[in-house]
């Protein structure tokens, strides 16, 4: 994708950089959530909570970044990237709320299930979506 508008070009570059950053950490965060869920099932102790708190903060940052990317894509003049390119990321927002609720209720098994069987696959799908978007914006 190319443009002669310098402001559009700058936005496009920032979106590309944002996507590259998100792609760099999404897989790692997903893997660490799976490790965290295993730890929670066996021994929901201090170690698991510390790991979990860090990953939840990282996930929050990642979701905020993807939101920014999504917003940025909306400002692009070229409409090649459609809104449904971020469908998995949309689903992750209510899931994130469920995770927080399970954490607050100390429902460790539900929390582990959500992370292992819902969140991790969703992040994997979201990663693929981002990669697709990045390709369209190349």
């Amino acid at each position, binding site marked *: 994708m190319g443009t002669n508008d310098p402001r559009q070009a700058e936005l496009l570059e920032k979106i590309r950089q944002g996507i590259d950053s998100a792609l760099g950490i999404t897989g790692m965060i997903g893997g660490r959530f799976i490790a965290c869920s295993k730890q929670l*099932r*066996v021994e*929901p102790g201090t170690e698991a909570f510390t790991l979990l708190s860090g990953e939840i903060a990282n996930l929050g940052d990642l979701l905020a970044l993807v939101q920014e990317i999504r917003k940025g894509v909306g400002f692009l003049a070229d409409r090649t990237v459609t809104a449904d390119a971020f469908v998995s990321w949309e689903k992750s927002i209510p899931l994130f709320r469920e995770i927080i609720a399970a954490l607050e209720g100390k*429902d460790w098994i539900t929390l582990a299930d959500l992370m292992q*069987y819902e969140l991790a696959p969703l992040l994997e799908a979201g990663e693929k979506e981002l990669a697709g978007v990045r390709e369209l914006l190349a």
Partner: protein
Amino acid sequence: MELIRSPKGHHSLRVTCPDGTARMLHSLYGPEEEATALVDAFDPGGARFVVVLGLGLGFHVAELCRRYPATELIVIEGKAEIRDLCGKHGKADRFSEKVHLVVGSSPLDAVSEISRLHLRAGLPPLAVFPFAPEVAAFPEYYGPIRGALDRTVSVRLWDRLRYPKFRGEALTVALFDFGYFLTEEIARAARALGHSVVRVPGEKGESLGDMLGRAIETIAAHRPDFFLTVNHLGFDEDGVLANLFRSIEMPAAIWYVDSPNVVVKAFPRNATPYSAVFIWDEGYLGELRSLGFENVSYLPLAADETVFRRRSLSPQETRKLGTAVGFVGDSMVVPARDHLRKVPVELHAAVERAAHRLQGTRGVPIAESVGESMEPAEREAFETLAEKGKSDLEAAVLCRATLLYRLSCLRELWEFNPCIRGDDGWKGLVSGNFRVAPRLNYYKELPLFYNACRLNFNATSVQMGKAVNQRVFDVPACGAFLLTDHQEAIEALFEVGKEVVTYRERGEIAELSRYYLREDDARKALAERGRRRVLSEHTYRHRIGGIVRFMRTVYG
């Protein structure tokens, strides 16, 4: 509590915790994979006894059974409802016979039950498997149990209780003390031989836990070389203490000075390689070995020479106690009557016939004597009795036979105005020349009485097939003269006719008594030789020395 079924068909439980939160106990996506991961993360460290805290729907228990088929799994579950749901919707059908559920007990009772089962298993190394979601959901319940178990594991009690023994010349002997008369004599003798004695007090009827607790405390605090008890006192029917001793390689010497039949038949689980049984009557040796006891030895009774010794009597004591012929013993009227009451009336005549048959013989097994005395109808009625009923009948026969035997012997002494020291039952059996006086205190009065009698007469209980009783040692220890029935065992213990005098038939009693009452010098010389024999071979020091030598040889 709510049973949840996932779209994939898996079951889980959602429980409401004391803090009001609702929590899931199993994954709704992969409960079996979850159980596998839980068991993967568990390291039993070689333990063969695992306590599982929390049952849930049993996924993890089934996996533990699969992975550790030889391990005892004690599963603690606070809620009966969870146990029921596990049975209906969980994996209880995959549990092995090694799973023992403890459900609905208080934390304290659960710990006691775990301790009981652990001891019964012989205190093997123990590991704890906390089912994390349930332990986290109910910390008030599982927390104290886990704390108690963690302490047990960290202390590694079974290692502390196992240590090298018989290292020095002077040993430490742990002595069960139930107030039985022989306990004092044993303790004194062991100390006189240079050993330390630690008493482990006990009471009949107290809980097994109390007894075990004291035994373990004694082992941990005093590190005895072995335990010593009389008539298996301190041991339990289920063999829990014996199992513990086997597990920690603690030998126990058990000295039977009464018929072991009732006790050992009820205690088959006590037959372990670490139990050495000493029996005062050789007639029981074969029977004990057939019950599985590997180390069985003959060990006769003895005298405490510090209590039973030659005494100079004051004129007052001589007036009070002095007599030509004295007899000390129970008439058996009361025990014979009490045992007979437990026997069905239609068998009373058979008891009487068996008692008459038995009182004239020695060495005939009681069961044989009873069987041969019965009419066919009586035998049929006897066979319908439970084991307890049969042993009541045999006890009634033994008591009645002893009564008849002693009475017939004593009647041979009527011309000597014998003095009987015993129970009031004698008053209804003898009259005329016989004087019946109250029982005497064993430690304070009996030594004086033996010293005060010119002739001490003895008639052994029918229950003793070959052995000799306590009087055969106590009377000579006093330097007093003994006329006793000729039990087989006496030949190896004394030189008959030179140290003690025996009668083989009741018809000999009067003539022998007449002779030795008349021949003062012969009587006194014979009594003195008997005293020397007791002092050189038949004191409790000799017996305890024998036990110590045996224990050191076998277990040292």
